[in-house]
């Protein structure tokens, strides 16, 4: 009998070890996968894969940056001399236009004559810049040359200010506005939620009667269980018009609206954890403080809050974590405009909202897909930095003692 128990114990121990090991390994692998997929982005050419940009050989422009290409095909850069060529109005040509110039019969069976016709078109116009599939590039035509294509650059990704991942010929992956948007909205969410949350926690743990507490605490915890899309819907229908009217803005979908919603969503977490920490203050400490003649209020802010500061810190971290990673609600109320935020009352776009909105349609393995993974990696790094620094702060506080 005793032996059997011993064996069972051994088995349980083994199972728990394996369980722990496998789980940690799985998490680690997910992170590795995330980064591996994401970093693949920089191996992609800045012009869409499988396509090339061609110009007339007489043109002395050799290479163009991703941004310059975009400006040309948006008709914003209109003269070659603006980008280092000879003066002449740029004529952007998209591959599809060939089908309106020639009928399918003229292009031959299986488009065998297509390269030849493309060559003719490009040779005819010295100012043309043509965006065509690589396989239809007119090989034997000396009047056509390919613009040197470079890979997507690190600086374009982190320093770029335009997020237009589906633009052809050259998608723009500027994540700077997205990162700033995410931090911006989370910062204000936590600034709103923190005083409210700690206030409620103090009230619940110190001031409220047992009866009020018994009703209020579960009610607040219930708020944490509401799906975020419900918060988002509430935000869109109620908060957005409210913000718009109160501040007399042209639009109600602003960073502020998002912060408000996030603050509401982070509140239950902050309240619950902070309140637990405060209630864990030993009875001896409270009584010692009161016995020294301190008032109730003095006890709260001189003894209880300092004692529970590491718990409050944990509450803040979890609150920020929730705010930064929140997707659905933010997607619905912030307007998702990828601009660098300059005020609280303008639309912004966050990283999680971008991933959620775009991953469904991004072709698997393509540059857009990989850029979204890289966004995920960035989000992961941001949250990691926040948790590490919060841990550091709370540990330092503790060692100082009370």
């Amino acid at each position: 009998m005793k032996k059997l128990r011993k064996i069972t114990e051994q088995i349980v121990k083994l199972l728990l070890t394996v369980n722990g090991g496998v789980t940690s390994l799985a998490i680690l692998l997910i992170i590795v996968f995330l980064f591996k997929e994401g970093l693949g982005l920089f191996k992609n050419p800045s012009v869409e894969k499988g396509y090339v940009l061609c110009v007339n050989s007489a043109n002395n422009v050799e290479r163009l940056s991703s941004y310059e290409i975009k400006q040309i095909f948006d008709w914003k850069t209109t003269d070659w001399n603006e980008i280092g060529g000879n003066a002449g109005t740029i004529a952007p040509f998209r591959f599809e236009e060939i089908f309106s110039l020639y009928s399918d019969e003229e292009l031959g069976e299986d488009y065998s004559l297509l390269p030849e016709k493309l060559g003719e078109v490009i040779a005819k116009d010295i100012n043309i810049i043509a965006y065509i599939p690589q396989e239809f590039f007119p090989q034997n035509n000396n009047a056509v040359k390919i613009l040197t294509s470079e890979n997507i650059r690190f600086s374009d990704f982190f320093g770029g200010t335009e997020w237009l991942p589906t633009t052809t010929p050259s998608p723009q992956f500027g994540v700077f506005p997205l990162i700033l948007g995410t931090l911006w909205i989370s910062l204000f969410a936590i600034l709103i939620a923190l005083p409210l949350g700690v206030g409620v926690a103090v009230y619940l743990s110190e001031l409220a009667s047992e009866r009020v507490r018994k009703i209020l605490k579960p009610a607040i915890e219930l708020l944490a269980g509401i799906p975020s899309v419900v918060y988002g819907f509430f935000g869109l229908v109620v908060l957005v018009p409210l913000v718009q009217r109160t501040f007399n803005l042209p639009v109600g979908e602003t960073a502020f609206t998002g912060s408000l919603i996030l603050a509401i969503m982070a509140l239950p977490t902050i309240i619950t954890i902070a309140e637990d920490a405060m209630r864990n203050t030993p009875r001896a400490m409270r009584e010692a403080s009161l016995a020294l003649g301190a008032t109730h209020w003095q006890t709260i802010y001189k003894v209880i809050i300092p004692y529970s500061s590491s718990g409050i810190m944990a509450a803040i971290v979890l609150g920020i974590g929730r705010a930064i990673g929140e997707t659905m609600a933010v997607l619905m109320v912030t307007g998702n405009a990828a601009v660098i935020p300059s005020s609280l009352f303008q639309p912004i776009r966050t990283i999680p909202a971008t991933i959620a909105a775009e991953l469904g349609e991004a072709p698997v393995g393509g540059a857009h897909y990989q850029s979204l993974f890289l966004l995920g990696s960035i989000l992961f790094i941001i949250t990691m930095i926040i948790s590490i620094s919060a841990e550091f702060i709370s540990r330092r506080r503790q060692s100082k003692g009370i």
Partner: protein
Amino acid sequence: MKKTILTAIILTTIALGAQAQRIKGSDTMLPLSQKEAEEFMNVNPSQTVTVTGGGSGVGISALLEGTTDLAQLSRKIKFDEKQKFQSNGKSVKEVIAAYDALAIVTHPSNKVKNLTREQLEDIFTGKIKNWKEVGGDDLAIVPYARETSSGTYEFFKESVLKNKNYMTGIMSMPATGAIIQSISQTKGAIGYVGLAYLNQNVKAIHVSYDQGKTFVEPSVANAKNETYPIVRPLYYYYESASENKVKLFIDFVLSTKGQQIVSEIGFISVR
């Protein structure tokens, strides 16, 4: 007992799966395909059709991988997608199931009634910023677009913006419902939605594609007689090899009954 039930469920799923047809793709077409599938299964109880969304691009890549039998697309198949099928030794067939018109909508209080394509292009690329520049009140214009993943986003870009990019920092909404909601509560707003989504909370703009000679109201009738310019076909794509499998469903969609459903959903029938 539990085991028996479980086995029974698994067995039925497998049995049904054998005759099931799968449709995948555009979210715009989702309500249409679902309704068609429902009616189709009523008429042919032996058939099962499952419909899933995910986007036009998802649909066509699923068709290429063989994880769906029909792909529903709110845009024409792209050239390089077609090339992919060819290089895999497959060929696709295309069926136009219905037409969808895009309506340009503003807040109901907006005085502007007519806009030309050129004006729309300038508004959505950020050149025109105030309603007074197009004959309205002195009010900032707030353009709303769909997310980049949407076929509607691409179609609007192609048809109205002539392939130019939207202005940087345009508001982009995850769903048509959200666009309607936002526009109905934002005075200077302008956006685009499928004709089927028009309601009293927003005002539809009359559009001109001929430099302002004629302005046409978005309506089913105008889309049908081809006077309204912003109309796109909605497609089903299938592999030529599996034609027999999907033919029954396609025929049903194109039948009088099927096209009646098209009109009920708010799209324009092909007849």
